[in-house]
């Protein structure tokens, strides 16, 4: 029983983290139809900013970092993404990858390629005993943060004007503009929000691993990208569910796979993804898929 609970907490924490990254990716996708690889480099930039701000009190450092990453996200949109807005999906995707490649290598040029360590707080990683359970504080914080962020975002997207405009733009961008939604502003706001989510993910990731390297954001975002499609493209709840399932499945497979095939965990995981997509091609929670009618 204890063991099952222990695994459940680990799986929930991992799932929560991927859900957080996945909604950041899904947010941009829903409005721009762009797969935003650069989201990972926003996370990476957040991590390195924490390194730069090492002397500053933690809370202040995190605040400054969040602001800087939000600003960075908005600047990236303005400088690199706006020129290709509305191009075909392949072009958009290559653009976002070029940005991510550029940022990785700029860090390589300036900071260097060797991994850096940065400690957010030792207390977070120490296991605490609850009954017979050994739980790390960071896992609980990750779960709580993910719930808070996803909940907050879904309330905001329904209740606030910006959120409603965002949803309108996601449904039909041209129609939303005709109804008076300002395209440039809503896209900038969306990127800002995704930057905020990336910054939060950066704090959690760095607190969890304590290691920085130039490609640290790439794997989470690639998985988040899979998660978004798995959950259902274009719906935030779909992305959250997909991210959660993928993260949780990783831990569960790791724990319960027989030893002989445990090395092939990822191969099994992604075969499952293909299988799910075959049954539900539009994802688990299908948004309104654009169907071409003649």
């Amino acid at each position: 029983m204890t063991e099952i609970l222990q695994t459940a907490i680990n799986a929930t924490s991992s799932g929560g983290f991927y859900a957080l990254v996945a909604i950041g990716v899904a947010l941009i996708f829903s409005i721009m139809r762009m797969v935003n690889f650069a989201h990972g480099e926003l996370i990476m930039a957040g991590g390195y900013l924490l390194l730069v701000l090492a002397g500053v009190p933690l809370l202040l450092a995190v605040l400054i970092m969040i602001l800087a990453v939000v600003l960075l996200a908005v600047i990236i949109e303005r400088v690199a993404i706006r020129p290709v807005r509305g191009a075909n999906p392949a072009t958009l995707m290559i653009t976002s990858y070029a940005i991510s490649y550029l940022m990785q290598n700029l860090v390589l040029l300036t900071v260097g390629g060797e991994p850096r360590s940065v400690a957010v707080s030792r207390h977070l990683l120490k296991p605490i005993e609850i009954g017979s359970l050994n739980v790390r504080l960071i896992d609980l914080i990750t779960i709580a943060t993910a719930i808070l962020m996803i909940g907050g975002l879904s309330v905001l997207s329904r209740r606030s004007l910006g959120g409603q405009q965002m949803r309108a733009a996601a449904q039909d961008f041209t129609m939303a503009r005709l109804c008076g939604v300002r395209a440039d502003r809503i896209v900038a706001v969306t990127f800002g929000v995704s930057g905020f989510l990336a910054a939060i993910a950066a704090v959690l990731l760095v607190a969890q691993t304590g290691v920085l390297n130039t490609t640290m954001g790439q794997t989470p975002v690639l998985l988040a990208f899979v998660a978004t499609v798995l959950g259902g493209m274009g719906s935030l709840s779909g992305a959250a569910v997909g991210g959660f399932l993928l993260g949780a499945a990783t831990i569960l497979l790791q724990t319960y796979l027989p030893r002989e095939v445990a090395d092939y965990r990822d191969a099994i995981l992604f075969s499952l993804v293909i299988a799910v997509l075959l049954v539900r091609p539009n994802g688990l929670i299908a948004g309104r898929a654009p169907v071409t009618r003649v």
Partner: protein
Amino acid sequence: MNLRSPLPTRFATPILLVAGITIVAALASTGSVSLQQTIMEMFINVVLVVGLYTFSGNSGVLSFGHTSFMAIGAYVTAALTMPPLLKQQPPLGLPGFLVDAHLSLLPAALIAGVAAGLIGAIVAVPLMRLTGLAAGIGTFALFLICQDVIKNASTLTAGEESLVGIPISDTVWSTWGWAVAVVLVAFAYQTSRAGLRLRASRDNEAAAAAAGVDIRRERRIALALSAVIAGVGGALYSNLLGVLSVTDFSFAASFLIIAMLVVGGMTSLSGAVVGVGVVTLVVQGLRTVEAGTSVAGLEIPARPGMTEVGLALLLLLVLALRPRGIVGGLELRWPRTFRRGRTPAALATNPPLEITDDVA
């Protein structure tokens, strides 16, 4: 393409592309060793990018999974061409029938292509049931599965270590031959009935389906054919380097191939070839600067990472200025003054890749 136009007009694209590739090969074969190495690499990239184009360019479905087929080709070639003694050195431990095989590159590359094509044909059955982004993610999952297998099947691939000792025999003219052959195959396919049906489905899925095109079937054919080409590309690649490791088939490698295709223009064969040429030129130029040179008496120190930064900036610039690639979906044709007869109809451009919301 107007089937009634005279032969030189109908075959303008392959003639011009092959001529271009041949001129580059002739110039390079007299050059330095490092230039020859660069050009061989470029020709192999032509094979890989045309392989990707055969599927993605004609179908409009992006594939992240093509490095998997490339990897299959590369490791099959390694298993067939390496000296028997090296094949049992741990962590390697190839099965008996492979240990004794000691082929030269040509048969090995053909077998590698067939092997990759078979795998391609098999995975195409489930993957091509998916459409749009789900299909893209399906190929991406294939890529991740392949990574995992390379890392863990260490008796076949040396796992996380490098597989060394693959005999090297590529020359400028042998890689030239493969590049030319692949361009001709790709052209033959895209002007064949099957190719035209697939291109019709790319331009308008609903209309093609209504006209009786079995889109899944056409996509399966294209994926299998492009897997064969990618497998051959992988064979040549392993033969060029003599060493293989899992990083050769990483996401960055996969992306470089996609980037070359998109920079040139995803929807035409000319775009695929031009994209390889342009990206190779830029990367070589940047590598020279990165190594540290002096320009007009000004010392430029060596900076690792600069090639990549420059390449990324080039990509962003090209995409901002020409979102549909350098050739913009057109094929190469004779200059207007040499053209005989009436041809304006044949100049028709390809419509946009797919119908999407107009994000202004």
